[in-house]
């Protein structure tokens, strides 16, 4: 393999990283910085073409730590601002960094519409199931009953699931990973970078100060193999330390089968390119306590992006009406002349 143009340190800014010690955000930053040289290499991208746009939250401080272009905007609006940037600058590769409060509370509207438009953006939603920056209130993804500063008796709200929101919004790329599984995180980031259209990635991230251990039940090294389900395109949904169990969905109802009893060849391979989103949707809704937690690329389909369609219209219009300039335009149609 030819040598890469960039190395990891080309993507590290000189700014001091200010997350709490032990915060899951560090791991994400490291993996993003690590994978960027490969992305630039594979996509023939120059570093200056990469821009990180974020909202507000601990997670949204991310752009300051990347040695790329960055725009730390306002709470919840990063997808909108990134849409404007992408539509006017399709030459850029734009990453949006958002949190569970930023992206799924104050900014849900923009997230949903960005996904349905299929704007060519890579959206990383750092889900720590808590409001970190404002010091520990429950978020829309906090589990019901979660005791926080603003819910001392436990939240009574039904949480929202980032993956099902993305699937319901017709996202063309939907993936989930955990910050602690660095190899998997890198793999998913690379896939997202290669996707044309909105790539939505939920990254489960531990906030060790306000919601420590939120993902331990399935993501620690000890339990990961048994409690996580790594989805891979074209392969059946097998999991377990010894690859001895599988998830299947006869008529849409999820069930776990023991491969000692169930013939492996009767398992259906997972199809991330399926136009129908029902399987992804069932996976998104699996009860975390009873089923393994699905990770990986759940959906990846090809559709024209927003700016491709917009630029097509511009070209069609130019062809049909001639590429006029302003003066020709205002001098045509209903005009009249007054002589001096």
């Amino acid at each position, binding site marked *: 393999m030819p040598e890469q143009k960039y190395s990891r340190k080309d993507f590290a*800014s000189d*700014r001091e990283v200010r997350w709490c010690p032990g915060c899951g955000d560090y791991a994400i930053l490291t993996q993003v910085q690590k994978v960027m040289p490969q992305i630039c290499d594979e996509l023939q991208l*120059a*570093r*200056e*073409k990469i*821009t*990180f*746009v974020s909202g*507000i939250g601990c997670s949204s401080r991310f*752009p*300051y730590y*990347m*040695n*790329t*272009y*960055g*725009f*730390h*905007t*306002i709470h919840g*609006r990063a997808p*909108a*601002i*990134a*849409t*404007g*940037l*992408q*539509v*006017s*600058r399709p*030459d*850029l590769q734009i990453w949006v960094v958002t949190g569970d409060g930023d992206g799924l509370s104050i900014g849900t*509207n*923009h997230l*949903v*519409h960005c996904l349905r438009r299929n704007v060519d953006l890579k959206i990383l939603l750092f889900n720590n199931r808590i409001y970190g920056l404002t010091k520990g209130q429950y978020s829309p993804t906090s589990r019901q009953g979660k005791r926080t500063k603003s819910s001392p008796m436990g939240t009574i709200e039904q949480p929202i699931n980032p993956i099902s929101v993305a699937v319901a919004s017709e996202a063309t790329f939907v993936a989930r990973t955990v910050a602690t599984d660095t190899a998997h995180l890198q793999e998913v980031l690379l896939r997202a970078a290669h996707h044309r259209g909105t790539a939505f990635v939920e990254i489960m991230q531990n906030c060790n100060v306000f919601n420590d251990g939120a993902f331990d039940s399935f993501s620690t090294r000890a339990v990961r193999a048994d409690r996580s389900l790594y989805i891979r395109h074209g392969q059946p949904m097998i999991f377990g330390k010894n690859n001895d169990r599988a998830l299947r969905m006869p008529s849409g109802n999820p069930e776990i089968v023991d491969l000692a009893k169930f013939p492996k060849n009767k398992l259906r391979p997972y199809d991330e390119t399926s136009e129908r989103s029902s399987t992804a949707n069932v996976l998104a809704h699996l009860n975390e306590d009873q089923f393994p937690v699905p990770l990986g690329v759940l959906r990846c389909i090809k559709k024209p992006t927003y700016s491709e369609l*917009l630029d097509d*219209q*511009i070209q*069609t*219009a*130019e062809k*049909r*009406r001639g*590429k*006029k*300039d*302003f003066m020709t*335009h*205002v*001098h045509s*149609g*209903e*005009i*009249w*002349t*007054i*002589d001096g």
Partner: protein
Amino acid sequence: MAIMDARPGEITIKEPEVQESVIIRFAGDSGDGIQLTGSLFTHDSAALGHDISTLTDFPAEIRAPVGTRAGVSSFQLNFSSGEIHTPGDRLDVLVALNPAALAVNLNDLPPGGIIILNEDAFNKTGLKKAKYGASDPRDDGTLAGYQVYPIPITSLTLAAVEPLGLGKKHASRCKNMFTVGLIAWIYDRPIDGLLRQVDMLFDKKKRRTTTPEKYEIFTEANRLALRAGYNYADTIEMFISKCRVGKANLPAGTYRRVTGNEATALGFLAASTISGLELLYASYPITPASEILHELSKFRHLGVRTVQAEDEIAAVGMAIGAAYGGKLGLTGTSGPGVALKSEAIGLAVMAELPLVIVNVQRGGPSTGLPTKTEQADLLQAMYGRNGECPVVVIAPQSPADCFGMALEAYRLAIKYMTPVFLLSDGYIANGSEPWRIPDNSELPDISVSFPDDPEEFQPYARNPDTLARPWAIPGTPGLEHCIGGIEKEDIAGKVSYDSANHERMIHLRDEKIQKIANDVPNIELFGPKSGDLLVLGWGGTYGAIRHAVQNAQKHGLSVASAHIRYLNPLPTNLGDILRDFKQVLMPELNSGQLRMLIRAEYLVDAVGLEKISGQPLQTNEVENRIYKMLGFSPAGKPEPTITANNLTSIQEA
């Protein structure tokens, strides 16, 4: 009795009499095609060389119940051989296609004025829906003193288009063209221009449909109706004499008729051409700003990108994204939308990006009066954000002026790297007037430079003249940096919570805006340089103020007017002007918002003329106040000329 019958034979036909100007209002149900009628006649007037000014009024509900007062739509045209600035206060002619249209509009027609009624609509149901109850305004004295011409417009139209075999519904839709024909005859116009316009109108529709045959028939029907109206007037000799309005003495050039919203869109298009930067317009539909979105959406072939955003916050966000990317980021809305955009505008102030926000003001607060005009968002534009958050605020004064001010918005936004508010309003947005298309040489310079030298690059280093920071855009090698809404360290642009730095940055951002005063034109005075009274206004009240002051000057009064188009910062010569007048009157369509600013800034005891009815300011309202303030009694001053007085009333005869 006021109603007249046509009595041919008793009248001798005279040569058309000459009038300086005529104010006609077409009124009917919102489904009657009133806007189209007015628009057609207006374009014809402009093409004939008159100066024109128009005013539209339509119901807030799209399908208000047919025949009710709430469902009345109107289009007013003032066409003149002299220079005009407003659509006029008092009508000469009112065309009422139904009783509700008469009821709603009669107040604006002074005694002696002409009323053309669609007699067919004055039946029991029509009168009831218009809340006239049992009594018919045609013979209960309501119309005493007016010249009333009841014409069975519906049945005459149906008869005219009968040969085409259209259904009644489609056939009666042509009655608006019948009235156009009728009015064309009264004002002694050839109808070929109007017929050509009918053709053009349907040609457009034909091209867009799969059933062009249908539109072939509609074209013919409308042509027939138009001719029938003209011929009817000619034959029946009901209008005793024609009158004629001469050509206006407009400066030589090529013109087109523009509404304020169209001119705004064209101004932005020009800004894109001049700067060489593509335009991105992101907007969420809202009355009365939607036409800007509609207009700009037509310009795909000129490289314009429009996005209908999911809400106003997204719209301003997209515009900021485009500005960050080095393009023209533009958003437009009305007051409620601006409320939503406030936080993001603050971001653009902090990030010092060239963003333009159009607010086509409407009646507020809250949803308020969506289709009515007001100027009550000035303080919102000035201060409606958290923190010390100065932006440039400018306001066009007439429909055609929207073009130049839209260009100004970008000239200033780019040169000073700042958000700029363009405060239009419903009155000028929907009103129209002739716009002389400027030459390339008349357009401002909007030069753009993006830094590309990594040596010594600092994101918040300022241009010493303008205090603008560099517009360093993604994609430039070596200039990678991060901006955002957190306070920035002076010059270096890094996040800074330092208190002394914060204070310095607050002052710098303010100073940058204040400096722009040296780069905007001086305020022009209309009238003497000093005197008893200065009438000072801003925005869409320009025409009414100017006209009123002109009338007062004719009485020898020492009064002048000045109109502020640059509201923040204010032009540097305003202070001197204010000092040179004994009194200052400030008419506004709000409770004195600019007046508050002017009093605070210049310590002058300006007096307000506040109108907040959703209706535009009228000449006579300003005029009366001027006379009152100057203790002048306009007794002996002729009543405003009733331009219909050349039509001999049979009653008088």
